Every structure is written in structure tokens, then in C-alpha cells.
């Protein structure tokens, strides 16, 4: 595997050229990828909101937003600005401290999880060894924020919504973690970089979706449930609970919930593409392309081409999944809370356990196909 472009190394070399020590260069470098990922996450949310409005309109034979910019592309920005300047209301009987801390606790773990999302061999904030496990453990903090805001609102609908959200995310976390475990078993590593590299041997044929079809479906269902997307959006079921834990929220605090749920959706889509759809890999291996073009794999042109292709592929795959999630939201009815818990505990959990067992068996029987 080639090392690809190492921006951090080149940046540090440039700063050292100005006579700075390597430590200071590192400190100057550190916030740059973080800011970049934060900005791209927020831009991703704007794009997703626009897609959601347009696709839902198409599904219902409407036109959707069309006056704000061409095809209404500026509509999400207008929505965001509206939420930004709206009055920030804290209900009189609410617990104002917990009421404020709730949305923050929901948003921060989701943004922190972007730490491990790779867009290329070296294009991620940090290749931490525990990789995907970090995401699983961070996403388990979210229910505390939901319970907190549900309790602090001092409203029975909010409390019920918060309790439902916590119950849902606890029950779907287990099949989710088990299906990730099956992928980790094949990779021998928790790092997202290793997981993608393991799928890069033969282009589209070596993607994990062929080796883990059941795991892929379980992961996708659980990811939708963790994001509280429509077939599973019980915590904010409008007909029963007004808006669940968000009922009393307005202005920027509501926007934090909104932002959190969309960032989480994009993050889940990215992780599905990393775990099962080959991450930044192009359906045809780049090595073959470079051979056809008669250029060595380390040529600068090929390097830049590979890096940009990697980013495009990751984003493309993720947005394909976001598109499917949006279509699902506008075409499927909501399940009941008992059906939701039945699905999680009585169907997905046994299936994912069996999937793990079969993966372990196949790994021992056919080590060349299932990662020795």
C-alpha cells in the first residue's frame, strides 16, 4: 500500500523552513484539520437539509424550496440564520442549567466522533488505535444528554421522549457493536484506516458488503435507529409526544439538536461506507489505473488524483446512503415502541450474534477470504 499524501509532514517541513521548532509547528498544525472537519460537517448538514427538503417534496409531488437561490440551495442557510436570531426561551419552571447542558451533551460526542473518519490514507484527524471503538463509546454518551434535556424541560412529553430515546439507543447499540465486531474480526484491527485498507485488494469485489451482507443490513438499521430517523423516530413522534425531548426548545438550543441529528446521520452514512463499502476506495483499484496510464504509483499527479478521488468516493458513497435514508423517511410508516424493542432485542440481537459466530467460523475455515 502506498503512503499517499502526508499533509501534516509537508506542512511541518514548511514551518520548519521558517525557523520554527517542530513542536510549535505541530501545535500550529493541530487545529487546522479539526476546523476543516468541523466546517465540512456543518456544510454537509446544510447539503443534507436541502436534499431532505427537495427529496421529500419530490416524494410528495411538490416542488419544495425554490426561491432562495437556484433550486432553493440557500434555503438551509436561511433556516439556520432564522434559528440563530430567534429568541432563546427557557421555560419558567424548567431547570435552566440542565436545560442548557442537554443539547451540548448531545452535540459534542457526535462531533468528536468525526476524529476517526478517514477520507484517504492520511486524510483524517487522528488514526487512533481504538478507532471504531471510540465511536461506539462516544455514541453511548448521547442518551445522557437526551435524558437531561427531557428531564430539565419539566414537561411530560419531553420526559417521555427522553426516556424513549435512551431506551432506543441502549437497545440498538448492542446489535450495532456486534456487527462492527464482525468486521473488526476480519480486519484484526480497530483502526478505520486498516478496515478500509483490508477492503482495497480487488476494488469493488473486495468490499465488506459481499462478505458481511447480514452485518451491513443490521448496521444500517441500527444506525438509523441511533439517529432517530423516521421508521424509528419514536422519541419525537409528533402525534403522540408533540416533539419529544425537543418540545420546549427554541432558537439556537433547538438548532443544536437539529444539527446533532443531521451530523449524526452523515457520520453514520460515512461509517457504513467505511465499514462495508470500501471507504475511499474506487470500484477499480487505483494501482490498475496507474498501470494503464503508465505512471508509477508514487508520481505526484497520481498522488493528487488518488487523494481527490478518495475524498470524492467517500462523500459520494455517504450521500448515496443519506439519499436512501431520506427516501426511507418519506416512504415508511413509524413503528410502535413495542415493535421497535421487539425488533431490536428479539430479532437483530440474535441475528447479529449468529453473524459474529459465522464470521469467526469462516475466518478460521477460509483465512484467505475472511482475513487471516
Amino acid at each position: 500500500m502506498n503512503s499517499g499524501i502526508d499533509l501534516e509532514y509537508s506542512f511541518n517541513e514548511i514551518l520548519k523552513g521558517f525557523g520554527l521548532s517542530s513542536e510549535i509547528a505541530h501545535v500550529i498544525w493541530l487545529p487546522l484539520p479539526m476546523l476543516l472537519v468541523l466546517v465540512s460537517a456543518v456544510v454537509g448538514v446544510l447539503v443534507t437539509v436541502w436534499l431532505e427538503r427537495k427529496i421529500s417534496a419530490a416524494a410528495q409531488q411538490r416542488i419544495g424550496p425554490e426561491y432562495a437561490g437556484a433550486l432553493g440551495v440557500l434555503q438551509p442557510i436561511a433556516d439556520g440564520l432564522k434559528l440563530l436570531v430567534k429568541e432563546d426561551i427557557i421555560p419558567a419552571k424548567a431547570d435552566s442549567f440542565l436545560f442548557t447542558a442537554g443539547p451540548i451533551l448531545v452535540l459534542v460526542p457526535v462531533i468528536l466522533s468525526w476524529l476517526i473518519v478517514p477520507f484517504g490514507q492520511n486524510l483524517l484527524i487522528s488514526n487512533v488505535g481504538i478507532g471504531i471503538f471510540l465511536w461506539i463509546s462516544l455514541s453511548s454518551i448521547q442518551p445522557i444528554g437526551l435524558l437531561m434535556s427531557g428531564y430539565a424541560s419539566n414537561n411530560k412529553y419531553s420526559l417521555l421522549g427522553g426516556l424513549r430515546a435512551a431506551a432506543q439507543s441502549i437497545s440498538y447499540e448492542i446489535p450495532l457493536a456486534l456487527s462492527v465486531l464482525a468486521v473488526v474480526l476480519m480486519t484484526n484491527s480497530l483502526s478505520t484506516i486498516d478496515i478500509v485498507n483490508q477492503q482495497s485488494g480487488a476494488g469493488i469485489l473486495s468490499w465488506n458488503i459481499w462478505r458481511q451482507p447480514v452485518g451491513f443490513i443490521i448496521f444500517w438499521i441500527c444506525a438509523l435507529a441511533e439517529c432517530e430517523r423516521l421508521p424509528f423516530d419514536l422519541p419525537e413522534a409528533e402525534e403522540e409526544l408533540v416533539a419529544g425531548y425537543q418540545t420546549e426548545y427554541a432558537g439556537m438550543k433547538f438548532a443544536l439538536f437539529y444539527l446533532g441529528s443531521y451530523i449524526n446521520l452523515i457520520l453514520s452514512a460515512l461509517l457504513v461506507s467505511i465499514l462495508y463499502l470500501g471507504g475511499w476506495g474506487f470500484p477499480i483499484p487505483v494501482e490498475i489505473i496507474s498501470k494503464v496510464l503508465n505512471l508509477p504509483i508514487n508520481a505526484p499527479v497520481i498522488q493528487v488524483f488518488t487523494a481527490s478521488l478518495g475524498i470524492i468516493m467517500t462523500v459520494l458513497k455517504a450521500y448515496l446512503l443519506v439519499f436512501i435514508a431520506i427516501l426511507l423517511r418519506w416512504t415508511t410508516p413509524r413503528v410502535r415502541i413495542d415493535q421497535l424493542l421487539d425488533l431490536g432485542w428479539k430479532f437483530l440481537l440474535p441475528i447479529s450474534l449468529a453473524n459474529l459466530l459465522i464470521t469467526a467460523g469462516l475466518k478460521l475455515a477460509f483465512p484467505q477470504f475472511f482475513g487471516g
Partner: protein
Amino acid sequence: MSIAVTTQIICFSILSLVVIVGALGVILLESIVYSAFLLGGVFMSVAGLYLLLNASFVAAAQVLVYVGAVNVLIIFAIMLVNKKEDLKPIDNIKSRRIISTSICLTLLSLLIRVDFSNVWSVADPNASIGEESTIRIGEHLFSDYLLPFEVASVLLLMAMIGAIVLARRDVMNEDISTGLPVDQELIEKASEPLLIKKN
């Protein structure tokens, strides 16, 4: 002193301050909900301390198990049974408080004495295994620590069976202490529609 060391010292002091103040808040605050949320904060800071010790797997497991499961369950239970009820006044509360405070202070002084008198063996910071620790933990769990590992799973199984027996009243439909039948009419299990009156 390099930037990395300074950052570590700042992080360590903030984290340990949060652990101490948070733990005091957990036991001293009147509101049980605040105590539960503070407990989550204490668990998080302990995970931060593990991170400073290069034990990233243990830190993530701490967050997953203690914050994501234990603390959420505690908060869940509090919210399901949160009755507004004043606690009964306890007799001679003052003397009880004095006794418990003195016991706690004695324990604290004992611990401080242990801390200063013992010679702690400090691992060589250059020999830390860092990211490899996940593999090392797995190896230990399946070799020399296999028995405790398996016994822990038996313990969890016992707790789960106990919970199922308590929840399924059709298995144990008699109150153990009084011998009276326990109310079996769970709303979720009603086969008849609840809103239509039976004739």
C-alpha cells in the same frame, strides 16, 4: 518544559479537580438527579485520566460501560420513580453526622498515610506499549485472567435471570414475604383492547 508535558499537567490538574469536586457533589447534593448526572461527569473524567496514562482502550471501555450503560440506567431508574416526596426526619441527625464525618476523615488520613509511606513502582514512560495495549489486554483475558473473566460473565447471567424472574410475574406469582398473590395484570400484556369496556 516542553509543550506536551505542560499540556499533560494542565489536563491532569483539571481532570483530578473535576473528579474530586464531582465526587463530593455526588454525595453532598440534595437533588438526586444532579448527583446522578455528576456521577456521569466523574466517570468521564476518570476516562480522561486513563487517556493520560496511554490506556485508550480502557478509557473507551470506561466511557462505554460506566457512562453509557451504568449511569444511563441509574438516571433512567431515577426518572421512572421520581416521586416528589420529603424524606422522613431522622432522629439525632447531628450526632450521626459527626460520627460519619469522623469515620470518613480517619479513612482519608489513613489513605494519605499509605500514599506517602509506600514506595510506588513507576513504570518506565519510554516503555509504554500505547496502542498495542488492546492486544495485550485480550491476551491476558484469555490466558492468566480467564477464570475471573468467565466468573464475571456468570455473575452477569445470574443478574439477568434474576431480573427476568422479577419481571415475569407468571413464573413467581406469589409475594415471598406475605404469601399473597401478586398483581398480574400488566397493561402491556392485556390481550383485550383497553379502551373498550367488557360486558
